[in-house]
């Protein structure tokens, strides 16, 4: 076990965990932040996506010991970000969600995409969102919501 001081959503959080513990489990089990979801556990589905220093990161495969002092942003705080707010509004507007399980990761990936590419092409969306799976197949609405959020960005 080791002690880590994490910067999560702008707050300093102290955890005492095994160094190899994936960040996802630290968030969910130790910090009780269950908005970030466990999907596949091998970074193949994107449900666990958070931002680490702004980079969309698969928290299920990154050990907590490798986070250091980088800033972690989770779905719980993404609405505090101007782009995140617009993406969440677009998600509501387009009624994207069906079962909802993958949507935290979908939104975190969409925000990362729009921050880097505010006016994405179809190919940009296809490629950037290609690692986020949705078993309810809400892909069409996800795409529409990203375009809608993009239109709201100056």
């Amino acid at each position, binding site marked *: 076990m080791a002690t880590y001081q994490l910067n999560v959503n702008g707050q300093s959080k102290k955890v005492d965990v095994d160094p190899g513990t994936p960040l996802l489990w630290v968030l969910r089990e130790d910090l009780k932040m269950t908005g970030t979801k466990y999907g596949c556990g091998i970074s193949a589905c994107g449900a666990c*996506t958070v931002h680490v220093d702004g980079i969309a990161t698969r928290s299920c*495969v*990154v050990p907590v010991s490798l986070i250091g002092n980088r800033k972690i942003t989770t779905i719980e705080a993404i609405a505090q970000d101007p782009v995140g707010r617009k993406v969440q509004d677009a998600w509501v507007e387009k009624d994207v969600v069906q079962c909802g399980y993958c949507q935290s990761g979908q939104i*975190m990936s969409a925000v990362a*995409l729009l921050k880097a590419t505010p006016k994405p092409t179809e190919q*940009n969306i296809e490629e950037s969102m290609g*690692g986020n799976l949705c078993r309810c197949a809400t892909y069409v609405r996800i795409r529409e919501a990203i375009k809608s959020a993009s239109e709201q960005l100056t």
Partner: protein
Amino acid sequence: MLSNSRFFIRTLLIVLGFTATWIVLTADAAVEGRDSQKLNSAASRPDGLAAWEQVYLVLISPRCINCHTATNYPQQGDDRRRHFANVVRGGHEGKGVPALTCAGCHQEVNADSTGVPGAPNWHLAPLSMRWQDTNDRPLSSAAVCRAVTDRSRNHNMDGRALLKHNAEDKLVLWGRNPGRRPDGTMRTLPPLTHAEFANATRTWVEAGTPCPRGR
């Protein structure tokens, strides 16, 4: 008085320790730097060609060639299958696309608890440095050699720079320390040790980076 003596001795030991460590580290760095740059012209062309074939065996091993693809994606595993999660090359830097970057999983060191390999600046080699065809078959020894030595394609590296790259680049070094797979087993290593690989590169460079004839 006694405590002052102890304090003096302890301080002296700490200073001596730091000094010794500094000397060892700087000496190592000097040797490393000199060795990787040390060249002589004694190697013959046949020696160089034989050494190149050793280098080539490493370059087409999965730990190296999986990120020297001719396609829009990296490969993974000893069977060199397409990287999962629809990972794509991205821009000219080969670091993926905004929501699906290499760094989103691959950290600066191997993550052995989850089986994800890592090293600084994890990225796909540029298409100019592809070592396989679009059907994922390794290019011939001659073709890879031409790609590696063509300064219009290799970031303008001459022989000395190629030697430094093969001897010191962190991603190259990762190839000999690829960490554990998600199932906990160790990843397969390239066929040469790093020292053998660096020495073969040196001999090849000293011979003037000769390439085999052929396609």
